[in-house]
């Protein structure tokens, strides 16, 4: 009955991005433009997914909405840029090993920062205002302002160029379609992050605890677990993912400024709202839709690019007020 319908729509929704890709072909007309836009959209979607999934899980588990989440994105981007700049010799070298080492160092530095800053942020900023949404929104917003100002104080107000490792520049040509290597890399890394998250959530005991905690935190405690300790781990991991997403975004954009995180925050929010709070699959579906739609609309109707995502959000909210795949609540 209803359950079967619910099951069907849960699986059906997973295909929405694919439906979008297919539907875009006749609208765009040219196959090569369509392929390029689709790949760009998927790569962008995966990077946004990395930023959004942590926010969504943190919210699902503890009912905490962290407006400061985008600060991790900004810091991740700038730390990666500085690391790559400092390792300029490795970045520029035509050696695959050195390239990879520089890239690994940049992403690793961003992730480490995310873990450490996530720990501090949870302890100092978020913990005192659990269960008080109003003050939570205000305080994390205040933290976002302060973080943005710190970025401005350290890296200055003018845009910073991000060196891209030699191996990730250029494109692969397949027929008349040029595929930027960096986009493939971003897509691959995002997909790896999704698979890792999915396996962690569905195959490990910690994942079991997180899924149970998202549904009913009190009951998990009544079974003998400390959800607050679990939460700090999730908060750190989510912050690290956001920082890595920021690092990837920095390489994608090539030129970054302190407002990057704030700009991404809007997209990340739209993704989390579309996907449904607390759900990793929802975040993935939402992020891919936002990435694809952004690229298609930028090509078809350049002025409507951001507004298109807003319209997508409104349409989905009308259809499903709690988002596409919300985590089951009680």
């Amino acid at each position, binding site marked *: 009955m209803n*359950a079967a319908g619910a099951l069907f729509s849960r699986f059906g929704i997973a295909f929405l991005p694919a439906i979008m890709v297919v539907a875009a072909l006749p609208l765009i007309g040219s196959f090569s433009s369509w392929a390029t836009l689709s790949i760009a959209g998927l790569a962008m979607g995966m990077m946004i997914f990395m930023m959004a999934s942590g926010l969504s899980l943190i919210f699902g588990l503890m009912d905490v909405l962290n407006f400061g989440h985008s600060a991790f994105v900004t810091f991740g981007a700038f730390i990666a840029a500085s690391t790559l700049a400092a390792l300029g010799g490795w970045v520029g070298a035509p050696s695959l090993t050195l390239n990879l080492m520089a890239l690994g160092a940049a992403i690793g530095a961003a992730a480490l920062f995310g873990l450490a800053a996530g720990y501090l942020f949870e302890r100092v900023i978020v913990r005192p205002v659990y269960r008080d949404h109003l003050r939570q929104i205000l305080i994390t917003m205040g933290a976002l302002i302060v973080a943005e100002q710190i970025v401005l104080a350290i890296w200055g107000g003018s845009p910073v160029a991000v060196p891209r490792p030699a191996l990730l520049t250029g494109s692969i040509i397949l027929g008349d379609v040029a595929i930027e290597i960096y986009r493939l890399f971003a897509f691959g890394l995002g997909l790896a992050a999704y698979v890792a998250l999915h396996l962690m959530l569905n195959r490990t005991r910690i994942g079991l605890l997180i899924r149970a905690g998202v549904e009913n935190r009190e009951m998990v*405690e009544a079974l003998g677990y400390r959800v607050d300790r679990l939460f700090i781990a999730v908060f750190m991991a989510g912050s690290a993912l956001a920082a890595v997403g920021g690092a990837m975004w920095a390489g994608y954009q090539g030129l970054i400024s302190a407002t990057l995180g704030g700009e991404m925050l809007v997209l990340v929010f739209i993704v989390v709202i579309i996907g449904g709070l607390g759900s990793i699959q929802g975040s993935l579906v939402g992020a891919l839709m936002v990435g694809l739609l952004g690229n298609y609309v930028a090509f078809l109707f350049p002025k409507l690019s951001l507004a298109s995502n807003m319209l997508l959000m409104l349409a989905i909210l009308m259809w499903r007020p709690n988002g596409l795949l919300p985590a*089951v609540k009680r």
Partner: protein
Amino acid sequence: MSDFILRLDDVHTDIAQYRILHGVSLDVPRGGVHVLLGRNGAGKTTTLRTIMGLWRARSGAVVLGHRDISAMHTSEIARLGVAYVPENMGIFGGLTVEENLRLAAGPAGFDPGRLKRIFTLFPAMEKFRDKSAWALSGGQKQMLAISRAIIEPRQLILIDEPTKGLAPAIIRAMIDAFRDIARETTILLVEQNFLFASSLGETVAVIDDGRIVHRGVMAELAADRDLQTRLLGLSLDAHH
């Protein structure tokens, strides 16, 4: 050795600005089924949640065995061997039946003997082992909630209105299961259904307006219609 597994001494609990419990004192003997009766809003659920540490007592003591647990974190209380079956059953609908049980079983995994016993008590649990818990019926969800409580050895099991909304046939099965469970542990049962409560309970306490108004042996209360009417009013008669 104390004869009592649980003692509440003059427990006061507030929820936000509302005072709910005004000095609840309660002794639960070790072993068997013991019942806390009372009408809606009398403070039954609040009493259970206070024992479990889900709400903090403003004053008074909650003693489990010989330890005062009133300041302990819920998870610590659970690890002392207290299981809680809330009124809404607290099932994780997104998890399978087995995953629900696995969480309750702790990191060492299932004890095969206990798992087998659960499957004997509630065959549906074996049948739907790999099904999502949200697909279970109301009665099956209640069985899963109780299975979670007995998948490990416990000192005390707190159960909040397990018969609410269940069909009479399921309630009868539930009575047998509770009798079986109570042979190895203690159950503190919160109920409004007097027939169900009186067929299981050894001792009874009646709560009204946040205070215990009667304590005694269940058989005596079950035999005394006048006392029932005086303590429990019409609400219980209306129930059946």
